[in-house]
């Protein structure tokens, strides 16, 4: 880790949200009312509330995807399997009141309310690459809290080795959970090794693009682990449990051969049905060139040591 300096963007280099909105309004105006009307209004219910956050040295300096891209192209099967389904249906979810139940191998079990998360911690802007297992990627400016800071409040017992997460189950507000043949077994569950969870890159995100998290992106609070495939970054979390045994994770249960517990981004280990060597960066349009996928999604310098001595073709 020595010698490497994270690039720290000066706050003057970050385009203010108002300027982006102005630009967008200008472009929409230029291309006529029809187009402006066709632009979906993401997160209908969500109050587009701003969050105060500080810049982080862990952010990438790559250009983030637009607010529209990030909020209209989502995998969130609780609201449907289509990429645009979450943007259409996630406004049906109520995100207040909200609390994460914290239990398992801790001396201090309890709850974290969303208001506490928003007020008791310093929020950080974390601009991360996101690599989906489906071989597309984005750059997303999350707003979040280091997961380690939250973990520490609960006085974790020495025997705990893993952290298990669960998403809300509320079929009356999550139409994907209402189908007769469930697309996935609910609740959606994910897990991390405790050292992965404590890694400085791992955050609980409560917003993006400087605003409160839109519902379709996993409001009010979701995990973001940027060196793993996107599905590990579980959304709308209601439970965190510390365990000694490796917890189950939804996609691993669904298809263990295709989705391992670790699911680190790895261009050398193909998904059985498609290659992971390259990816398409969303937002580049029809003719965007494919880019090479990087080991650990480009975060190898920070996280590779977590996996020293492990055969990553076996622990995929």
């Amino acid at each position, binding site marked *: 880790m020595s010698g490497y300096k994270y690039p720290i963007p000066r706050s003057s280099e970050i385009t203010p949200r108002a300027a982006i909105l102005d630009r967008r309004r200008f472009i929409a105006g230029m291309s006529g009312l029809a187009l402006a009307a066709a632009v979906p209004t993401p997160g209908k219910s969500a109050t587009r509330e701003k969050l105060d956050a500080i810049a982080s040295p862990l952010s990438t300096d790559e250009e983030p995807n637009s607010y529209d891209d990030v909020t209209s192209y989502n995998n969130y099967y609780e609201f449907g399997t289509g*990429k645009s389904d979450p943007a259409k249906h996630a406004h049906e979810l109520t995100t207040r009141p909200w609390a994460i139940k914290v239990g398992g191998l801790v001396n201090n079990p309890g709850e974290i309310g969303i208001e506490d998360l928003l007020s008791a911690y310093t929020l950080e802007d974390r601009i991360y690459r996101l690599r989906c297992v489906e071989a597309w990627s984005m750059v997303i400016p999350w707003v979040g809290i280091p997961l380690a800071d939250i973990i520490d409040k609960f006085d974790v017992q020495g025997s705990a080795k893993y952290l298990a997460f669960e998403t809300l189950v509320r079929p009356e507000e999550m139409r994907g959970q209402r189908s007769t043949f469930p697309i996935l077994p609910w609740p959606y569950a994910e897990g991390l090794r405790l050292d992965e969870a404590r890694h400085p890159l791992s955050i609980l995100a409560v917003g993006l693009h400087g605003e409160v998290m839109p519902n379709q992106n996993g409001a009010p609070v979701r995990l973001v682990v940027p060196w793993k495939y996107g599905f590990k970054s579980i959304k709308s979390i209601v439970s965190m449990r510390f365990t000694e045994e490796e917890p189950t994770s939804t996609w691993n249960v669904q298809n263990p051969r295709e989705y391992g517990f670790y699911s680190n981004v790895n261009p050398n280990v193909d998904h059985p*049905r498609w290659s992971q060597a390259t990816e398409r960066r*969303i937002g580049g349009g*029809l*003719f965007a*060139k*494919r880019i090479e996928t990087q080991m650990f999604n480009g975060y190898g310098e920070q996280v590779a040591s977590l996996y020293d001595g492990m055969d990553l073709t076996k622990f995929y």
Partner: protein
Amino acid sequence: MAQSRYWTLMPEWLVYPIALLPAAHLLWGAVSNTLGPDPLKVLENGLGEWALRVLIAGLAITPIMRFLRINLIKYRRAIGLVAFIYVILHLSVYLVLDKQLDWAAIGADIVKRPYITIGMAAFVMLVPLAATSNKWSVRKLGSAAWRRLHRLVYVIAVFGAIHYLLLVKAWPPEPIIYLLIIVALLAVRLVRPQRRLRTAS
């Protein structure tokens, strides 16, 4: 026993512009950038899905004739050729825009990815059918041999649906529904009508 002539009033050539409207709509969306954040996948998947739908329309002609006694056979060649056009467009988008003519990656896909292998096999089988979709070929091959050759479309349609089913995550309903429709359309061909209908064609 004569069917209503209204069913076949439309000239055959009109099938092409009508059935290719969705392709035009998708291509226009791609050009005018209204397909959302990932226009490539919308275009690629949309063309593939329409190929399946048009294949299904072609497979429906015989059951419609047998069970509803409506003879639409004059449109079947055009429907088959439109399906072929959708497959060509779908394949071109995959090769040029998705894989960006990276032949090593394409070759690896064909060998290693069953859904690509099956899709490619369906395309290869479709080529001789498109090439023999003309009166000259029927004469040249003889009606019986020509019919036998064109039964390949049964395999092609099933392959097309499996190609879709193998590429999705989990078990969303759409590919399963397409496969069930195709299997149903093939299964009804095994049902012998009680009264033999002789239609001139």
